[in-house]
């Protein structure tokens, strides 16, 4: 598991940052994000919290060995869930990869909160984790196969050497008997 975190301050009021959230893409700095779709949205009529679920489509240069090994493609999709709470003035954005998620997950969380100076604090954390169960079961299978191969080869080796010794010494014995 790998962890990542960073903090930053935007010199804009919280409301401007939260309005800006919906205008982030397309962005010349983030050309890897090519599509953005809202797949679900709800406004809590009591708390006023807006929950939005989006699917982001990314194009990135995946190393060819990853594509070959995992059967992925250049298109990668991410599920993003955001909550905007105007009462507490907290906005959180959680993102998890959909593509290749059977092999590894990247769980990212971003939070925007107002600072006392009227600016906005940005906090980003991420956890990147390979699906260990998958690796372990694959490793177990590989190990079992190796053990079987080793036993097989060991048996073949034993049989082979037995033959060599028998042939060698039987021949010597025959020679001795004749002389």
């Amino acid at each position, binding site marked *: 598991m790998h962890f990542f*975190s960073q903090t930053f301050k935007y010199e804009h009021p919280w409301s401007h940052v939260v*309005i800006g959230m919906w205008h982030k893409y397309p962005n010349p700095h983030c050309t890897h994000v090519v599509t953005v779709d809202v*797949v679900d949205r709800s406004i809590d009529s*009591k708390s006023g919290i807006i929950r939005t679920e989006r699917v982001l489509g990314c194009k990135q240069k995946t190393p060819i060995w990853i594509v070959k090994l995992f059967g992925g493609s250049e298109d990668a999709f991410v599920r993003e*869930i955001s909550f905007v709470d105007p*009462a507490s003035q907290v906005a959180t954005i959680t993102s998890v990869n959909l593509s290749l*998620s059977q092999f590894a997950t990247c769980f990212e969380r971003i*939070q925007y909160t107002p600072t006392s100076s009227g600016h906005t604090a940005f906090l980003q954390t991420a956890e990147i984790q390979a699906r260990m169960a998958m690796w372990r079961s694959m490793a177990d299978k590989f190990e079992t196969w190796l053990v079987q191969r080793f036993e097989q080869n060991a048996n073949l080796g034993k049989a082979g050497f037995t033959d060599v010794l028998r042939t060698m010494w039987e021949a010597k014995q025959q020679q001795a008997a004749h002389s």
Partner: protein
Amino acid sequence: MAHSLSPECTPLKHAYDSCFNTWFEGYLEPAVSPSSSEQRAQYSKKKADEFEERCGKVWVEYKQCVQKAVKDKGLGDLLDQARVENPLRDPPPAPSPGEVSSSSSSSQ
């Protein structure tokens, strides 16, 4: 405005995004100003109804289009699985101070 994952949904997506953005900008400023929870609930209800009234129709059309596109791209099962694993129906708790640092770290 970013494109939809299916070009045929892009016009509907743009219409829906514009509708939401206009509504949201009007919603947010008064929503952050302090008020009692009663006033907040009243305001939230009014604005939620207003959003439904203004953007509800285009949302139904766009949602239909994008749901099909998600399935066509083979993302339906992945999305369902992700929703089971992390429903995220409620706002997550704030990260604990221990998690916060300004540098990146890695551990096994």
